[in-house]
């Protein structure tokens, strides 16, 4: 999902980090590189 968002939808990691944090499922941008 992270790869799809980044490379398919053009959603950068820091933006996804903000979205996740606002929905109380925090996922820092550095952590997002792991699964990718």
């Amino acid at each position, binding site marked *: 999902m992270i790869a799809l968002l980044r490379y398919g939808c053009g959603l950068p990691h820091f933006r*996804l980090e903000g*979205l*996740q944090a606002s*929905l109380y*499922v925090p996922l820092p941008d550095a*952590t997002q590189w*792991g*699964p990718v």
Partner: protein
Amino acid sequence: MKEPELVTATQQELDEILALAKTSFPHKHYELLEGVLATFVFVMLKLQNAKTSIKRFQRMLFGARTELKRNVLDADTKVCAEQPVDAAAAGAAVLDDAVDDGDKPARKPKPGHGRNAAGAYSGAPIVECEHPRIDSGDRCPQCDKGRVYDSPPRTLVKVVGQAPLGATVYRLQRLRCRLCDAVFTAPCRRRWPPCPSTTRAVRR
């Protein structure tokens, strides 16, 4: 400028004036007078109907401000189709326009406002909901004579907002021996493929 006196005149009176003017006036001046009277009739009809806002009235008199294709083409086709021949025809055309132009111009609805069928949600889980009291083959509770059988289900699509990436917190029970300090951790119900981030999270 002095305020003019309001004059009420019928269409017949205006036609008589035009008939008189046609013989005595030069053609150019006659056309001008005809146009003035037609405008007067048009304005008075619109004001009497009292359904016209000032903005719409302005648009009717001076035309649309934008040069959208539909505005320009509509105006052109209307002018081509309704060219008045004489004064009576001009008056009739004005009356017809007054009746027709009161409403908004019919716009073609933009495409893309349909709904997706339930079959389009192929990735969504399907929840089968059974009736709590009635089964197939039971007596009808309403008429108490017939029997009810399966019919095509009513389908509802419920869309909920959620985070793009969900997370689940697993709390694994740990048992420690008070004597030898051996720790026994309960296995996690779910198995993942090896992933560095997951491993890191578990280590913390």
